[in-house]
């Protein structure tokens, strides 16, 4: 089953990079959607089926925490898995993201294999190429 993924980041370049990584990683990718902040992400969710969100934390308008709160309060999206792709290193803020329902986090800068490995972990499928390189960092 192909997975629809929503990338939320205020950097167009970072969205491009993540899209490329998803496209070449062998991940069973359906549609890849993009939003530049949490508010845009919520609008996209209104009209599209999304299986997983990759989101930055630091964004204008609505940040990653705002997005997590909005998802948690919505009856249809409260179980939607969110993986944060972020520069955040503050343990308190990471704990806050956990408590708001984030399923994992990948710290920038990252290696493409980390994105691939974390996605396979979240969706519960095996990585057929066996190239998972996660060292556990960023696991909740």
């Amino acid at each position, binding site marked *: 089953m192909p997975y629809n993924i929503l990338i939320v980041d205020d950097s167009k370049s970072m969205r491009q990079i993540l899209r490329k990584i998803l496209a070449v990683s062998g991940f069973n990718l359906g549609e890849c959607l993009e939003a530049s902040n949490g508010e845009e992400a919520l609008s996209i969710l209104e009209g599209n089926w999304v299986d997983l969100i990759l989101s930055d934390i630091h964004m204008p308008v609505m940040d990653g925490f705002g997005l997590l709160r909005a998802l948690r309060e919505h009856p249809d999206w409260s179980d939607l898995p969110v993986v944060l792709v972020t520069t955040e290193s503050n343990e*308190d803020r990471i704990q806050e993201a956990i408590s708001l329902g984030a399923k994992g986090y990948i710290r920038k*800068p990252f290696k493409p294999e980390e994105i691939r490995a974390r996605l396979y972990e979240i969706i519960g499928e095996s990585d057929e190429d066996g190239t998972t390189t996660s060292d556990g960092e960023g696991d909740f």
Partner: protein
Amino acid sequence: MKMEPRLAMVKAISEVLETMFFVSVDFADCQPPSHACYCDSRILIYDHRQIIDVWFRLAAEFAKMATANFLGLDEEEVQDEDVADVMRELANMVGGDFLGRLEGEQLQLGIPSFEPFEGNMDTVPTKVELSFMSAFVGVVLWETKVRDME
């Protein structure tokens, strides 16, 4: 153990440039050319007590090469808006990595910007100079200011 800020910055720059930009720079003193064009980006790191104002002043040619590497494009394909966006992201990633190495600090990252540096580089107390293949390619400057407590 808390890392000394200059060492933390050097390690952060190396980590980000090598992992995401496929570029390895040196940090030896290098004479900047007098005629160079620069791309400047900035990020603020702050808490209730202090603001660390960090500037990235990269030679335009190096910034374009790094942008091409980051996006997987040929340099000819890189647009000015790509450079601006990627330099903001560079500031964001280096700022975050730097912060992560300053253990025990409860600082937060601001939103990065792409704007010209209009201060006097000689008066900024802390800087790290970057060279690539023995040529000066930029400088990262930062200054810690105590916040006005009202």
